[in-house]
């Protein structure tokens, strides 16, 4: 990026009078610096506001906000462990489903697809990201949950005998952790696949040719030459998808069954932190309740920060390994 800017500036210097250019440079520099500073300032301001509002609950309830699973508003107990659990589990389920699919799409588009197909399919996948989440929620209510209840869940539980494991047991109602994980998978998929596709396409041609020259099959070429080269970018894409899944509110709220209980079965209803806040905030009058919801928000904020930090670290460590 910097080299492009530098080149532009060089051209400018040659064509414009030097003094005007230097004033322009300075103004440009100041404007971009301000732009760059606004974003971190905004993040800090949001964090300060959330933690300040959450403080009364944190001071009074301490860690039990995230460790207790007793969320009982009239009783004055605020333990959001089931929501924390639901947030993590639904996101992990989403990634487990979305990642292979998204990488498969990306590999197809970059390696196998005829050129005329690449654009339209890529566009359709990207389009998934532009659909509002409430539309996903509606689709989930009218199409996905009846399908799960009548076909998928009985099939998994009884036909495949997965009911013997703790993950696919219990009655099939439709709204469930599984439904939420599936919808999140569809929503996270375009992020992962768009990023993966671009990094795969950016792998130099010479890398591929070298592998083929060593008598690698097409699959071996992709596995040994292309994917390792693109690994850090793909991981970045997965983390982007995870960020999307962790924060999603509306579609999840419509499909997860909103029941603050921890259950190993994916057929059971669950709860997420984002949907807990969205459900209860508008009618919360009690100060401790409001503050506890803010504390849940603060915890979600922290989780998102941690996920992003881990993603950075992963990308960094993978690219460092490759550099060696």
């Amino acid at each position, binding site marked *: 990026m910097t080299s492009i800017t530098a080149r532009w500036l060089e051209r400018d210097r040659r064509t414009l009078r030097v003094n005007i250019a230097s004033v322009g440079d300075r103004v440009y520099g100041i404007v971009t610096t301000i732009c760059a500073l606004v974003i971190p300032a905004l993040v800090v301001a949001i964090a300060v506001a959330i933690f300040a509002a959450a403080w009364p609950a944190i001071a009074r309830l301490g860690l039990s906000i995230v460790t207790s699973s007793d969320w*009982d*508003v009239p009783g004055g107990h605020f333990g959001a462990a089931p929501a924390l659990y639901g947030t993590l589990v639904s996101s992990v389920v989403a990634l487990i489903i979305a990642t292979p699919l998204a990488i498969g799409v990306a590999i197809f588009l970059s390696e196998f697809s005829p050129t005329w197909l690449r654009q339209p399919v*890529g566009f359709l996948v990207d389009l998934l990201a532009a659909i509002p989440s409430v539309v996903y929620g509606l689709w989930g209510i009218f199409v996905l949950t009846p399908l799960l209840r009548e076909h998928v869940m009985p099939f998994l539980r009884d036909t495949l005998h997965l009911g013997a494991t703790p993950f696919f047991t219990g*009655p099939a*109602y439709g709204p469930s952790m599984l439904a939420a994980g599936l919808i999140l998978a569809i929503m996270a998929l375009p992020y992962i696949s*768009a990023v993966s596709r671009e990094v795969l396409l950016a792998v130099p041609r010479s890398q591929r040719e070298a592998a083929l020259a060593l008598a690698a099959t097409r699959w071996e070429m992709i596995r040994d030459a292309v994917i390792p080269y693109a690994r850090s970018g793909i991981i970045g894409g997965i983390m982007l998808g995870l960020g999307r899944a962790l924060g999603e509110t509306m579609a999840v709220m419509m499909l997860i069954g909103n029941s603050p209980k921890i259950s190993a079965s994916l057929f059971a*209803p669950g709860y997420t932190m984002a949907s807990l806040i969205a459900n*209860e905030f508008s*009618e919360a009058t009690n100060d401790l309740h409001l503050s506890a919801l803010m504390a849940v928000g603060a915890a979600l904020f922290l989780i998102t920060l941690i996920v992003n930090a881990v993603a950075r670290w992963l990308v960094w460590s993978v690219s460092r390994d490759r550099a060696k």
Partner: protein
Amino acid sequence: MRALKAAALMLLAVACAKESANNSQTASSTASTTSGSVDLTGAGATFPYPLYSRWFSEYAREAGVKINYQSIGSGGGIRQLSEGTVDFGASDSPMSDDEMAKAKGGPIIHIPTVLGAVVITYNIPGASAPLTLTGKAIADIFSGKITKWNDARITSLNPGVTLPATDILVVHRSDGSGTTYIFTDYLSRAVPAWNSTVGKGKEVKWPVGLGAKGNEAVAGQVKQTPGAIGYVELAYAKQNNLPTAAIQNKAGKAIVPSVSAVTAAAAGAAKTLPANTDYRISIVDAPGADSYPISSFTWILVYQNQGDAVKGKKVVDFLNWALTKGEADAAALDYAPLPSEMASKVKEKIAAVRLAQ
């Protein structure tokens, strides 16, 4: 790279479109609150909003007073009134003593406007006739003690109705709601054990079932799932022709929910009211042979001492109009009007509002 840019641009465009839609919405609402044409502002309950918005438009035509109301939920209404940012609040549950004490503008008067009711809706394949339930049976179902439709505690109430041996799925509200408050208030009144286990509130800790946001999601889930049972507002159930259960009232009579049965509940409860009541009362499980037991007032909240005499007078005039002419609109929108003798008593309460000199 170009495709990624295109995708990013597309996302950006969508985000911007959303953003600008939000902006224009807030811009227009702030414009209308601050412009000279609006005389009063209110905020609060969503449940009576369809009726209130009709009232406001009729009142604007008749009296030339424009009222801007934001249906942001009872909690928000109470908060905004306490902060003094609106001229009146509206709530589906009465303010607690604690909340009243925190209000910045002094004592608050509760003006009941109309009544709402909560009905039990269900989806039982093959059930031949409408279901009848008691408070005890409802509490047992919603606390997970009754899990099958053909449980003796249900079948004994419904002789002649064939009930299947299938599981019951309880559907409750997940969002904080006056509907949940009324429903749990009824259960804790009718069944003492409920009070010590679940209790009452706008959101409670449900022992069983699925949570859905809003009346429409509860109704949708019940409609979709064979064996499901849930609770929704009377008006919503009537407009969508949902099957509703008759509920046995205090007098032992099974009452099918209707606007007139709800008004009857208010009349039954009114008989036992002390003369100086502040109307922060619950009328669930009301006495009277025709009373539907899961009903409640919805209130408009105003400060007793109005600092701005001009606005204060407009509020008082509007409230008097609402309790006289406004009540006549209620039934057409499936809200139960106050019994007429009660409406005139409430007007005496409105007279207690003091305007600054």
